[in-house]
Each structure stands twice: as structure tokens, then as C-alpha cells.
């Protein structure tokens, strides 16, 4: 039965990713330490420097730590997406990617399954982080944690698809440092993860525009609203469209007759 084949393959790819994640404890730890340091150190330090007005979805004045928590959730997923991308470049260089690509399933499905696996891992990281934040008294309404789940799926898929797209263009592991400098940092800093849009607009109009159209900003806003039990339609549409676009481009990139493979040979 064809449908079972698809299911077994998805399950196989997700469980492999989980096994690898469990075995690489330092990866889990570093994925967690990064946002925790931002929360405990950076946010605490900037609490006094940055005043936050009452902006949706918040109904009262909030602490800066509360504001950046959704941004840090996005950060976890952004780094996870890039980490998956890095591991795909590594797998391709080391050869284990070939085993995936020669499986008798459509390539788009294999890549999508790989994406799901990465998102699944990132969601685990996010909830552990939120657990730590809870004890730091950063607490969202309980139902918000439930609403956050589908939002995490979409934002994770979008950021994972971006990583996948990048991995289809990066030929060697060494080039990955460029991704850090030219993708992760600009995406993170030019977004609403650390400061709201109006604050950016106060200092620079073009920075404000860049942040507004940055898909990472939209993903963060989608997560922010979901965490407070609200649906941000604009952010949802923007994130979903960005996901579809990145995924299509990544699939083309991995198509043997069109993308990366075509450039390798004819």
C-alpha cells in the first residue's frame, strides 16, 4: 500500500532526527542555553533601557522579558532551521543524503518529511524553554500554550524551508559561516523579535520597512499573538506564503534536472 510507504518513511525520518537529537546532548543544551542567556542576561540588562508601550496582543504594560519571549521562540526555530540546513549540507558532503534521495518516494515528499522532523525537534526545544521561562515568571495564559502549537508548526516549517533552500545552494560546509553572517543575524536583528516596529520606526524608516517585510518578523508576530490566544491573520498569511515560496524554491534546488544538480552536470 502506497500510503503506508509514505507514512513509514515520514516516521523513519522523524525518528532518526529524534535519535540524533537525543544522542547529541550538547546540541540540545546549546539550543536551550542561547535563548535562556538572552532572556536572563540581555533582557534583564535592557529592561530599563527600553520602554514598551501597550501594543497588541498585550493588554497592559509588560516587562521587556515578556516582550522578547516570542522573539526568542522564533530564535530557537531560526537556529534549528539553519542547524537542519547545516546538517543537510554535511549529509550531502558525507554522502548520507544520498540514501534519502535514492529512496523510491517523490523528492518533494522526502524533503518535506525532513522539514517536519526538524520542526518536531524545534517544538520540543521551545516548550522546554517556555517551561524555564514559566519559572522566571514569564507566564502566558494556559490556552496560549495550546494555540502556540499550530503556530510553531507553521513558523518552524517556514524557517526550516528557508534552511532547506539555503542548503540546496551551499556547496560546501565552509560556506556555511556566510549563512550566519548574511542570513541568521540580519534576519534576527532586523525583526520584531527584540524591539517592536514603532520603536524601529523612531530610529530609522528604512530599518522599519526591512523589519516589517522580514518573514522572520511576521513569524514572530504570529507566535506572539498565538501565545496570547489570538490569531494574527496578516502574519499568518505572510508566513504561510513565505513557507510555500521557500519550499517550492528548495524543491527546485534539489531537483536533479533543474536546480543544484543541474548546475553540477548536464
Amino acid at each position, binding site marked *: 500500500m502506497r500510503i503506508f*510507504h509514505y507514512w*513509514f*518513511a515520514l516516521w523513519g525520518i522523524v525518528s532518526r532526527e529524534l535519535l540524533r537529537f537525543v544522542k547529541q546532548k550538547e546540541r540540545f543544551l546549546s539550543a536551550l542555553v542561547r535563548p535562556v542567556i538572552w532572556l536572563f542576561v540581555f533582557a534583564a540588562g535592557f529592561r530599563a533601557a527600553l520602554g514598551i508601550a501597550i501594543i497588541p496582543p498585550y493588554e497592559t504594560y509588560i516587562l521587556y522579558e515578556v516582550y522578547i519571549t516570542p522573539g526568542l521562540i522564533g530564535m530557537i526555530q531560526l537556529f534549528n532551521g539553519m542547524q537542519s540546513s547545516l546538517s543537510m549540507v554535511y549529509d550531502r558532503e558525507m554522502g548520507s543524503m544520498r540514501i534519502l534521495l535514492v*529512496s523510491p518516494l*517523490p523528492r518533494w515528499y522526502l524533503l518535506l518529511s525532513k522539514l517536519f522532523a526538524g520542526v518536531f525537534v524545534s517544538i520540543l526545544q521551545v516548550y522546554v524553554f517556555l517551561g524555564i521561562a514559566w519559572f522566571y515568571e514569564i507566564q502566558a495564559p494556559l490556552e496560549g500554550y495550546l494555540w502556540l502549537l499550530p503556530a510553531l508548526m507553521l513558523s518552524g516549517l517556514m524557517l526550516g524551508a528557508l534552511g532547506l533552500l539555503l542548503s540546496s545552494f551551499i556547496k560546501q560546509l565552509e560556506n556555511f559561516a556566510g549563512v550566519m553572517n548574511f542570513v541568521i543575524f540580519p534576519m534576527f536583528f532586523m525583526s520584531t523579535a527584540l524591539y517592536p516596529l514603532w520603536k524601529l520606526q523612531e530610529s530609522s524608516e528604512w530599518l522599519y520597512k526591512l523589519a516589517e517585510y522580514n518573514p522572520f518578523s511576521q513569524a514572530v508576530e504570529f507566535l506572539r499573538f498565538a501565545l496570547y490566544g489570538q490569531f494574527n491573520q496578516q502574519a499568518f498569511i505572510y508566513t504561510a506564503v513565505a513557507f510555500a515560496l521557500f519550499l517550492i524554491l528548495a524543491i527546485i534546488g534539489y531537483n536533479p534536472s533543474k536546480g543544484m544538480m543541474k548546475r553540477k*552536470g548536464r
Partner: protein
Amino acid sequence: MAKHPALAITDLSFSYGKKQVLHDLSLIVEEGQCCILLGPNGAGKSTLFSLITRLYAHKQGDIQLAGFNIQKRPLKALAQLGVVFQQTTLDLDLTVQQNLRYHAALQGISSKKANLGIQEQLERLGMYERRKEVVRQLNGGHRRRVEIARALMHKPSVLLLDEPTVGLDAPSRQAIVDHVHQLVEDGSLAVLWATHLMDEIYASDKVVLIHHGSVKAEGGVTDIIQQAQADNINDAFFKLTQGKS
């Protein structure tokens, strides 16, 4: 209806940019046949394997696996294939069993059947007792055995081996050569084995010698020796590949 060959390649050409690496290459591997793809480094063996496995797409020529065209019916064609790549493709941090289960899942094998398949294939290669070991702890020869077991788990009709014995010591090499030939003798499996090592060839094998991307000679070992007017297969290989460009 006539039975299709396990692997049929017709007039295949391929280039990396302007550099043409395969020129109108044709070859056929029948069911129950071990075909040795002999050629010096850079002859185009690995490129050919990348085309058969659809890692690269070709524009000229045709590749069929058990009658399924690799470009028109890629999923049916790939389902016929078991592959051992030149570079190890095992996940070093996972156990032997976990690696094989992952492959079984990709091939659509249920976990119950996968466990039976793992036992069957690993027992044949004397590796079943080591199934719970992390691959990183295994030596090169044992890793290769695991890769062969993995390639056979879904009962493919064609087994591709791209220089699988490179870097192995003599006993490990011999064990792999013997095992693969035994597999061919036992059943209907067709094998395409790329190598440049003459001692991996059995007298019963079909040999296809490629050089600079095209077939220079093909046939049984004695045919190749006769075609090259040589004394032995080593000599024939040397005559057919040296001093020509």
C-alpha cells in the same frame, strides 16, 4: 512478453558544463549476472552511478531498471535498486540496527518485516550479534558489510556497488567479493560493481571496461583478454587504458 534486462543503459551521454564525461555509453546487466565495471580513476564510473541512482539527471540516452525508465517512472525504477556508494553513507552516531531500520522505513517496510529483514541480512554477513553497536565503533570492513546488508533489505533486482572495497584490508575485501558473488549465484540478483582492482573479478563475471567515458571493451574475462591481445586481465586493462586519450 519478453523479460526486461535488470539494467539497460542505452547511448548515455553526460557532461559537467563543457566537460563531457560519458559518451554514448551502453551496457546491459541481466538477471543473475555480476557485471564488473572496470575503469581507471576518472573514467566516469561514479558519474554513471549518480545517473543510475537519479542523483543527476541525464538529457541524452536512456536508463531502464527492470524495464522502468529512470526519468519517466523514477519511483518504480528506484524501488528496484540497492546501492552501496563509494563513500560510506551510514549514520555513524546510530547503531547498526537503527541505520537499517531507517533505510527500511524509507523503502516502505513495516517495522515487523524490517526486524526480520535485518536479522536475515545481518546473519548472512555475520553481523547480527553486532546489531546494537554504534556504527562509529565498527571498522571499515564491518561498516561495508552493514551497507551491503542495508542495500539488500528491500530485495532489489539490481545491486550497485561503487568501489565498495576501497580502503579495506585484504581479508575484508575478499569476504565482500565472495559474499556478493555468492548472492549472484544464489538468486536472480543482478550486480553492477565498479572497481579498478582486477583481483575482484571472477572468471564467470561479465566485464565492461570504460575509459574516458566510453566503453572500450566488454564481454567475459577471456573475451576482454582476447580483444586486447593480452596475456591476462591485468595486462588487458593496461593495454586498453594506457597511452590513449
